[in-house]
């Protein structure tokens, strides 16, 4: 089928199948995460997820034999364009799709792929990430969680932190130390662990924004079947790094996410709060700062587009995920600082009727944005990676 025909067909299908409510911007609390105990605010959410999943379009480029859409990159791009054109919400989100699925496809056994990919694509299992530990943040490979192979299973003991939404997740993909005598990068394995068993416990962490999206996860004497090892024993670090590249890409694109702010740029808030003169923001310093931010943000979006276009044209992509992670998250922090600067008093409220719901949400999101340059590898780690792998600077 030609791309043009694919576009026509896709547009028609979306028109017919995307429920009207799913064509409206999704508030943060209406994200569809799937899982064994999914929460629905509207029946249309489930309908939309199921319809998309049935075509494999929750992971459109994944092979059909695992439930994926089997689309080419060009086709997937068209699907994305048509969804954006119609304002379609994402039918399903989560770490299963964006992080685990790509490494399952690359490193999984046939049995693992058959078992896990369809569950992810259909939204049946919600995954979380067991990487960081209290003593192993930027020094991820310094992790101390242990797994000991005992016949047909591993016995796992460990303490993970920053496990996003672990209290809602069904399974966790985990880095564990399987050879304590090896060098630190060489004794790590990648395990898939079901959380619905005694010994796994997730405790939410309250953040400065007041929300609790992360947990500490404790794993005590948990048995994990040997077939849940992804890749080879003690070779988990390679998979871990690969997954981080996927994570960086998804965090680097954080500024893209739909939401109130995308529709209410800082300059509109600045006009509202600092006043307007001849169609311009009345405060010239604020105006210049916002323009400087907007220019950087636009240049970054163009860079994401360029990278995608180059990939589509078959040009070799550079090792750019660290750059996207670094720049995208720093920009997102600046974006919220701009919003605060534009709003003045209204930007630093916490509670009360004098602040609009948007204003109060943005204050919390401003605080939440500070984690962007920490989670998924700090900005400092990203700069280290760029210096070493891209620029070839010596250790």
């Amino acid at each position, binding site marked *: 089928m030609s791309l043009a025909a694919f576009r026509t067909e896709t547009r028609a299908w979306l028109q017919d199948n995307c429920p009207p409510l799913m064509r409206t911007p999704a508030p943060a609390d209406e994200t569809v995460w799937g899982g064994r105990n999914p929460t629905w605010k509207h029946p249309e959410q489930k309908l939309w997820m199921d319809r998309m999943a049935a075509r494999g379009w929750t992971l459109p480029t994944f092979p059909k034999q695992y439930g994926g859409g089997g689309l080419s990159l060009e086709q997937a791009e068209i699907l994305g364009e048509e969804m954006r054109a119609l304002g379609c919400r994402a039918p399903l989100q989560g770490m299963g799709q964006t992080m685990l699925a790509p490494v399952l496809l690359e490193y999984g056994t046939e049995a693992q792929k058959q078992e896990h990919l369809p569950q992810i694509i259909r939204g049946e299992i919600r995954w979380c990430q067991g990487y*960081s530990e209290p*003593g*192993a*943040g*930027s*020094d991820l490979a*310094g992790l101390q969680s242990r797994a000991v192979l005992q016949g047909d299973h591993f016995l796992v003991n460990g303490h993970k*932190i*920053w496990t996003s939404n672990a209290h809602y997740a069904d399974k966790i993909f985990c880095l564990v130390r399987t050879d304590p005598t090896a060098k630190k990068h060489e004794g790590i394995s990648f395990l898939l662990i079901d959380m619905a068993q005694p010994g796994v416990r997730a405790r939410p*962490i*309250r*953040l*400065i924004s*007041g929300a609790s999206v992360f947990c500490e996860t404790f794993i005590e004497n948990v048995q994990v079947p040997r077939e849940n090892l992804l890749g080879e024993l003690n070779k988990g670090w390679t998979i871990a790094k690969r997954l981080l590249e996927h994570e960086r890409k998804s965090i680097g694109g954080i500024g893209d996410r739909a939401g109130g702010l995308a529709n209410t740029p800082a300059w509109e808030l600045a006009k509202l*709060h*600092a006043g307007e003169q001849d169609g311009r923001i009345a*405060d010239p*310093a*604020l105006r210049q*700062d916002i323009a400087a931010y907007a220019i950087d943000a636009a240049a970054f979006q163009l860079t994401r587009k360029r990278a995608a276009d180059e990939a589509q044209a078959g040009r070799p992509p550079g090792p750019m995920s660290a750059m996207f992670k670094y720049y995208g998250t720093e920009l997102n922090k600046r974006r919220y600082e701009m919003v*605060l*600067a534009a*709003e*003045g*008093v*209204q*930007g*630093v*409220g*916490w*509670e*009360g*009727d*004098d*602040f609009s719901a948007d204003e109060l949400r943005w*204050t919390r999101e*401003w*605080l939440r944005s*500070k*984690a962007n*340059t*920490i*989670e998924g590898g*700090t*900005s*400092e780690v990203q*700069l280290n990676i760029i210096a070493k792998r891209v620029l070839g600077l010596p250790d």
Partner: protein
Amino acid sequence: MALVLSEDAQLVRDQALDFFREKSPILALRKLRDSADPTGFSRELWREMADLGWTGFLVSEDAGGSGFGMVGLGQVLEAAGRTLAASPLISTALIGASALDIAGTPAQKSAYLTSLLSGDTITALASEEGSHHNPAAVAATARPSADGWVLDGRKTFVLDGHVATLLIVSARTAAGITLFLVPAATQGVTITRRLMADSRNAALVTLANVHLPAGALLGTDGGGTALLDRLLDRARVGLAAEMLGSACEAFDRTVQYLKDRKQFGVPIGSFQALKHRAAVLFAEIEVTRSAVLAALTALDEGAADAAALASLAKAKANATLNLASSEGVQMHGGIGMTDEHEIGFFLKRSRVAEITFGSTGFHRDRYAALNGY
């Protein structure tokens, strides 16, 4: 002017540092927050501060204060900033005391000063009307009545307004911007508490047909702009001193964390990129300290460049606390994002303090204008 603390000021400083460290650590703010305390500060501690004489630093001796001045009060505020202590120091000991001391009639002084000095009267300045600091934008009106004035208007960001017993209100008369003393209990005054991100409080104050006696006028009819400028310059520098204290504390904690936290088998403070950022921040704090001390001193000496120095001090304090709190959270990594850790309190405080009495942009603009460009 010599930029060095007198022995007396040094003593006040040491006393204040001990006071806040012992009686009002950040834990106190957390408790006020988590218990949803309706006042957001401790009246008991406030009385102790009054007993220490801090409410009288800006009140002349003949009016019952010590006249110790801004340099002294700045030391207290800097110490308060170290532990993020919430108190009416700025709204009352600084602004309210100054207003009465500078412009109060004997009747006004005798009505309010004693109870202000003892910590009973809490004052609040009701001058802002929009989202951004702009003392000149006054839409509130005061029209003469048979026996005094009638006020109408809406004030948006009245610090400590929710607990104030006496408001200092700016309103426009035929002669221009004018200040009035308005008891909070006056009929027609509505005060709504606004909880800010730093767990402190401001209030929305509406004035609807508020009848005041002739003696409510503070200073002269139409003299509000100049008087407000004087009060605000003191407030800006006092707040800058407090922010300096907060920046110092956030910095000290961050440097300590850099020494304690190990990754890759070494303290993260051994990484040169973090070292350099810490060293840059150190330098910024040092120059901010000089700007604050110079501004405090200039206010006490009535120096010609006091207004420019006030804008200088607030602009530097804004930028430095912003940097110190941002770097503090980033360098603390994940733990800095948790509510359990205290470094996040500095981040929240910083942005509220920044927009209070003028953002960095406001004070750059004012500094340029005062210097003729």
